[in-house]
C-alpha cells in the first residue's frame, strides 16, 4: 500500500522504513518518513460513496407508552391443563400467594411458580364453583352445582362445614370481610349469609329476579356486598338493613362485579360492556367501555396502580390505563372465563373454557442479566489495545489510517454499477421478508439512477417469481406502493411477450390483478365515504367564508391503476 502512494524518489527510503517497522511492530498503523514536512490532507466529504438511504416511515398504530412497556414485560404463558372449564381463580392474600383454581369437580391450589397442584380438593359430587379464600388465607369456601356450599381448611382435605339450603346451583361464594360469615349467591334467585362457627343460615334475601352470577364483598365494611345478576341489575346490599341499598341497571346480564380498593368505584361487566359506577354519587355511571366484541366474563384489578383488566369470550384480556383507554392486550387461545392477578402483578392467571389455565409470569431484570452473562464473552482487552500503545520515534511522521467505510452488499454493488446484482441482493429472502423497506429503498435508488429497467430485465422464472411475490405482498402498502407500481409496469412491459410460457408467473400475475382490482374498489368506496362525510361536515359547520380543513392524513393512499 505504501509503495503505491509514495512517489518514485522516495520509494527506496520507504522500503527501508517498511522493513524497519515490519520488524519493529507489525501493526496496522502506517509510518513513513517524509523529507518534506507536508501535512497530508484528507478531503472526506467528496471522496466517499453515499450509501443508499433507507427511509423508515413510521408505522401507524398504537403508540408506545410506559403502560404498554409494563404490560409487555411478561414471559410467554405456562399452560396447565385442568379437567374442565376454569370458572374461578383466586389468589391467597398471604405471602406465598398460592392460588385456588376451580375447574370441573375439583379445586386445585397452585404455588406461584409450580405447575403441579400443591393441594387439591376433590370431594365434590358435581361441578364446583367459586372457590375463594378467606382474608387470612386459611379457609376456602366453594359452592357447587348441587347447591351445597363447602368450607375447607387449606391444610385439610375434608370439608370443615357444609351449608345446605340453596335449592339450585351456587355459582358465587365469598367470605365477608369479618371472616366469620360467608355469603353465597345461587340460581334459585336468593343469596344467603351463613355463620361459619355455627354453620347456620343467618339470612336469605330474594331481590334479584334471575340467576345470581356475580358477587363482591366490601373489604372495608363487613356488612356490605355487591351482587350482580342475569336480571341486568347490580345491587349493593347492607346486612344491617337486610335489603338492597342501591340498584344499578347494567343493561345486560351481569357476569362479574368488582370493587375498587377505595370502594368508591364499582365495575360491572356483562354483555360486551364494562361499566364503571361511582358509588359515592349514588351509583352514577362513570364510563361505559365497549372494547370487547363478545361477552366480558371477568374483570380484575392490578395491584400496582389499580389498572383494570377485563377478559372476555373473544379470547382477549385487555388492560386499561387510568383514563380507561386500552393500553395492552393479551391474546389467549380460547374463550376466557376467569382471571386473576397476583399481588405485585407477579402473575397473571387466566382460565379458559377449554380447561386450560394459562399463567404469565413477570420478567425480571435479573433473569435477563443471567441470560446475557451466560452468552459468550467479548474479545479480550488485549485485542483492543493492539497497536494503540505504539510510540512513534521522534522524527517519524504519522500517517493516519483512513477510516474504512463499511457498505452493505447492495451498496457495494451499486457503487460498482452492478444493478442487477444489487437488486438480487435486496431481494434475498431475509431482507425482503423482514426488512421490505430496504428492498424498496434499493428499488427507489435504481429508479433514480434510471437503471431499474436494466436491473429487472433478463431474469428467469425463479427470480421473476421472487419479484412478483414481493409485489403481491407489498403493493398496497401505502409506504411502498408508488415504487412498486413502477416495478409492476416495467415487468409487464419487459416480459409481455414471454409471459405465457410460464404458468407460475401467469398465475401470479392473475393474483396481482385480482389484488389490485380489490384495492381499487376499496379506494373507490373510501372516496365515496369521504364524499359523504364531506357533505355531512359541510352541512354541520356554520357557514363561514373559509373552508378550514382539519389536518388530513398526509398520504391520500396510492393511486392505483388496473394492471
Amino acid at each position, binding site marked *: 500500500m505504501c509503495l503505491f*502512494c509514495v512517489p518514485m524518489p522516495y520509494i527506496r527510503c520507504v522500503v527501508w522504513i517498511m522493513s524497519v517497522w515490519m520488524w519493529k511492530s507489525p501493526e496496522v498503523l502506517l509510518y513513513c518518513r517524509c523529507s518534506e514536512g507536508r501535512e497530508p490532507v484528507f478531503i472526506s466529504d467528496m471522496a466517499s460513496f*453515499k450509501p443508499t438511504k433507507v427511509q423508515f416511515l413510521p408505522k401507524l398504530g398504537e403508540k408506545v407508552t410506559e403502560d404498554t412497556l409494563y404490560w409487555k414485560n411478561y414471559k410467554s404463558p405456562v399452560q396447565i391443563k385442568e379437567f374442565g372449564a376454569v370458572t374461578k381463580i383466586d389468589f391467597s392474600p398471604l405471602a406465598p400467594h398460592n392460588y385456588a383454581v376451580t375447574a370441573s369437580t375439583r379445586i386445585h391450589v397452585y404455588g406461584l411458580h409450580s405447575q403441579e397442584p400443591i393441594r387439591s380438593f376433590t370431594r365434590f359430587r358435581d361441578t364446583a364453583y367459586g372457590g375463594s379464600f378467606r382474608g387470612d388465607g386459611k379457609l376456602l369456601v366453594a359452592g357447587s352445582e348441587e347447591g351445597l356450599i363447602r368450607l375447607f381448611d387449606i391444610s385439610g382435605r375434608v370439608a370443615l362445614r357444609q351449608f345446605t339450603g340453596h335449592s339450585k346451583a351456587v355459582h358465587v361464594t365469598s367470605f365477608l370481610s369479618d371472616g366469620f360469615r360467608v355469603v353465597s349467591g345461587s340460581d334459585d334467585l336468593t343469596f344467603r349469609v351463613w355463620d361459619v362457627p355455627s354453620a347456620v343460615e343467618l339470612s336469605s334475601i330474594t331481590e334479584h329476579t334471575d340467576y345470581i352470577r356475580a358477587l363482591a364483598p366490601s373489604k372495608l365494611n363487613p356488612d356490605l356486598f355487591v351482587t350482580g345478576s342475569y336480571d341486568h341489575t347490580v345491587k349493593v346490599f347492607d346486612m344491617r338493613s337486610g335489603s338492597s341499598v342501591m340498584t344499578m341497571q347494567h343493561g345486560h346480564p351481569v357476569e362479574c362485579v368488582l370493587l375498587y380498593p377505595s370502594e368508591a368505584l364499582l365495575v360491572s361487566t356483562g354483555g360486551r360492556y364494562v361499566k364503571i359506577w361511582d358509588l359515592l354519587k349514588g351509583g352514577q355511571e362513570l364510563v361505559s367501555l365497549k372494547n370487547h366484541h363478545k361477552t366480558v366474563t371477568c374483570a380484575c384489578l392490578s395491584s400496582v396502580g389499580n389498572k383494570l383488566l377485563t377478559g372476555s369470550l373473544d379470547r382477549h384480556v385487555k388492560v386499561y390505563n387510568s383514563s380507561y383507554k386500552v393500553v395492552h392486550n393479551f391474546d389467549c387461545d380460547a374463550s376466557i372465563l376467569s382471571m386473576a392477578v397476583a399481588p405485585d402483578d407477579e402473575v397473571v392467571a387466566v382460565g379458559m373454557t377449554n380447561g386450560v389455565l394459562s399463567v404469565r409470569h413477570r420478567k425480571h431484570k435479573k433473569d435477563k442479566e443471567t441470560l446475557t452473562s451466560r452468552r459468550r464473552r467479548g474479545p479480550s482487552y488485549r485485542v483492543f489495545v493492539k497497536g494503540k500503545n505504539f510510540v512513534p520515534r521522534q522524527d517519524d511522521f504519522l500517517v493516519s489510517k483512513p477510516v474504512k467505510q463499511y457498505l452493505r452488499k447492495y451498496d457495494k454493488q451499486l457503487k460498482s454499477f452492478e444493478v442487477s446484482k444489487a437488486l438480487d441482493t435486496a431481494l434475498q429472502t431475509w431482507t425482503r421478508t423482514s426488512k421490505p423497506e430496504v428492498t424498496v429503498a434499493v428499488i427507489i435508488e435504481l429508479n*433514480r439512477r434510471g437503471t431499474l429497467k436494466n436491473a429487472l430485465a433478463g431474469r428467469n422464472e425463479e427470480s421473476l417469481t421472487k419479484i412478483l411475490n414481493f409485489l403481491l405482498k407489498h403493493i398496497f402498502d401505502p409506504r411502498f406502493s408508488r415504487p412498486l407500481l413502477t416495478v409492476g409496469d416495467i415487468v409487464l412491459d419487459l416480459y409481455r411477450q414471454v409471459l405465457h410460457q410460464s404458468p407460475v408467473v401467469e398465475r401470479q400475475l392473475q393474483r396481482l390483478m385480482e389484488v389490485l382490482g380489490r384495492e381499487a374498489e376499496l379506494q373507490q368506496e373510501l372516496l365515496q365515504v369521504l364524499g359523504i362525510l364531506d357533505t355531512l361536515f359541510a352541512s354541520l359547520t356554520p357557514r363561514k367564508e373559509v373552508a378550514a380543513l382539519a389536518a388530513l392524513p398526509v398520504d391520500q393512499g396510492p393511486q392505483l391503476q388496473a394492471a
Partner: protein
Amino acid sequence: SLDGKYKVQRHGLFVLCTSGDSVKVYSTRTEEWLHSLQGHTNQVTGIALNPANHLQVYSCSADGTVKLWDFIDGILIKTFIIGYPLFAIYVSEKHEGIVFLHIGFQLVAVHLPKSAEQEVEAKELSAVSRHISPNPSCTAFGREGQYIAFARNLQLNVYFFRKQKTYSFSLKATDKKGAKNAFTCIACHPTDDCIATGHEDGKIRLWRNFIHKKEYTYSTQHWHHNAVNTLCFTPEGTNLLSGGIESVLVQWQYGTGNRKEFLPRLGGSILHVSTSSDGQLFCTSHSDNKITVIESSFKVCGVIQGLVKDAVLTDLMIDPRSKALVLNGKPGHLQFYSLLRDKHLYNLDIVQQEYIYEAGLDQFEVVKAAFDIKGYWLATVEERGQKSSDLEFFLKLWSYDERTQSFVLNTTITAAHTDRIISMCFSSSEETTMLVTIAEDGQFKAWCQGVDADTQQDQNFWSCDFVGSYHNLKPTNCSFSADSSLLAVSFQEVITIWSPDTWELLTTLCQPPGVIRDLCFGRLSCSKYLISTTTRNLLCCWNLLTCAFLMDSFSGLYTVFVFKPNEPRPLFTHKNVCSEKIHRAVFVPREEPLNNCDESSQWLNRSQLYFLTQNMLVIDDSVAVTPFYLLLGKHRQQQQKLNTPSHQAADRPQQPQGSVTITELLHTPAHVLPPASVLCSMFVSSLLISNTGEMESSEQEMNSEKEEEDSEGEMEACDSQQELRVQGSVDEVTPKLSKAQERELKRVRKTDFSWMAGLIASKP
C-alpha cells in the same frame, strides 16, 4: 470564475488559471488566492509557461495580445501585439522565441521579437495549419517539440517540423457498433513517439509508428462512458491521466495495457487535467468552478472552490448567523459563500444521495430554501421529476448544531403536499418557530415543532399544525408580519390575512386585476404596510390598520426603483443596472453601517444590493465597490447618474399615456383605487403630457419589485428584478446613444475606474 486553463508551476507551488480577463495565481499548499495578473482587456483564452524561464508565463487573450508575466511577483514583463483575437497558445522548449497561436481556424507560429520595449508588435507570422479544431485541447506538441499533433473532427494530423510535412490519419465517423469516433482531445508522450487521443464515445486511442505514414498503428482502450474531456501525460511519461463528465480521474499506466487507477467523485465534470513539471502534483478543473489539487499518490490534497452558479433555483438568501450568501451549490447541495471575505465557506449536503454523473439523468435538486430569523432553522425542498409527470419532493428541516457549526437534519417530510411547493416562509417571532408552505394543490400548511399529544413527550420534530385553503384557489405567495401576529397568503388576486394563533381568517383584501406575484410586510416603523406586486405591473401597498389602499404602476427595463411605502413616487430610480437579465437579487447587510446623508442613497447605508444575472453576480453600491467584483470576473460598475436621464425616468411612471391611465381607471374596481387626490394629479398630469406630445413608450414590460430592508428605521428599499419578458420594444426601451455619447460615456467610465482603483488601494 475559475474557468479556462491552468498550469501548475515547477515544484508545484502555484496554480495559474484564467478567469475572465485576468490570470489568477493560487498557492497549491494553502489553496489561497495570491494575486491576479491583470492587464488584458478581453477574455484570457490560454496560458503557457515560458519554457526558457520557469518563472514566467505567456498568456493570450481575445483582445489580440500575448503578454509575458512574472507570475510570482505579478509583474507584466512584455506585451506582444498580434492584432487578431487569439484562442489558444502553445509553446515548446525546442522552439525558443516562437509561440504557436490559435487564430481563427489557423494554427500560426509567431516569432516573438526581442526588444527592450514594453509593447512590441509581432509581425512574423507563419501558418502551420489552416484547419484546426476550435477546441484548444485538440492540439499538442510531440516529443521534444519535433512535431505538433492536432485533431479535427475525424482526422488526426501530425506536422513534422524537420520534414515540414503533415501526415494525416482519419477514422470512420462511426463503426459497426455505432460508436462516435470524433476526436475530443489529444496528448503526446514526452519521451516516446506516441500520441494519445480521446474520443466522443469515451475511447482512448494510443497512436504509434506514425512517423511512417503507411505503417501507423493504434491501440484502443475504453473506460469512460462519455466523451473524454482531457488527456495528459505525466512528465516522466509513466502515466496517462484522463477525465470526463463522470468526474473520475483515471490514471492509465503507460505500456502496461489496461492497468489503471481511479479517483472518483471529484466534483463537477472534469474539464482539464495538468501536472506540475516535476510530476508531483496533478490538477483538475471542474465544471462547477473548482480546481482540485491531487498528489501523485492519487490523493486529493486541496480544493480551490469558487462560487458555483450552475443553475440557481433557490432564492439568493443570507444566512442570518454567518451573513453568508446561500444558494444552490454543487448538485444537491447548498453553498455558503461569504461575500465579505469573498470566500466559499462550505457546502451543505441536502439531498444526501450519491450523485450520478450522467448526462440527461433526472436527479434531486434543491429548489427552495428558507432560514428562520435567527438562523437556527433551515427549511429546504428538494425535487425530482420536473420533466416527467411523476414528481417527487421532500421537505426537510435542519437545525443548527453549535458543536459542529453546521446544519443537522432534523425532520424529513416525504409527502408534505400533494403537489409542488411554490413558496415557504418562517414566522419571524423569536419565541416560536413556525413554517408555512404553500403548494399548487391549493392548500397552505403550517408546520410546528412541538409536543406530540398522544405520548406527552417533548420531541423536537416538526409536524403539521394547520391546513388552510381559500375557495380552492391556487396560492401564490405567503408572508409573515414583523411580529408574526399576522400571516398573509395571496390566492391569485386575493390576499387573505390569517391569525397564526387561532387560525382564523381575519380579513381578505381584494387586489386590482392581476395575479399577485410577491407579497411582503413592512418592517419596523412601516410594519403596518403590506406590499404586493402583480403580474400587471402594479405595486400595491395596503395599510393594514385602516385597510386603505395605495397603488402604483410603473415600468422600466433593468431598473431599480426604491420606494418609501407610504409614498406613491419612487424615492430612487436607477436605470440599466446591468446588461443582462436579472434573475435574483438580495440585500446583504454591511459590517458597519455607513453614514450617508444623501437621501437617494440612504437606503444603502445598512446593506448592499447584489444581483444575480445569467453569468455573474453584480453588486449595486453607489458608495463603495468592494474587491468582490474582481473575484467574480467581469463586473459592471454602477454609475449613479441622477442627472438628466434618470430624472426623466423617475417621472415617467407617473406619466403614462392618457388613454392607458383612463382605461386603468375605468377597469379597476373603485374600492381598490388610490385616494382621489393622488388620482387627480396623475390624471391631470397625464393629460398634460399627451398634449405636449412627449413620446413615451408605454407598452414596455416592467419589473416586479420586492420591498425589503430598512435603513435608519425609516427607509424602505425596493429592488427590481426578475422576469423581464423582453419584447419587441426593447430597442425603444434602451436609450439609444450616439457614437459621440458612447465615447463620452467610456471616458467617464475610465476616469471613474481609476478613481475607484485609488480608493481600493487606500482602503485597508
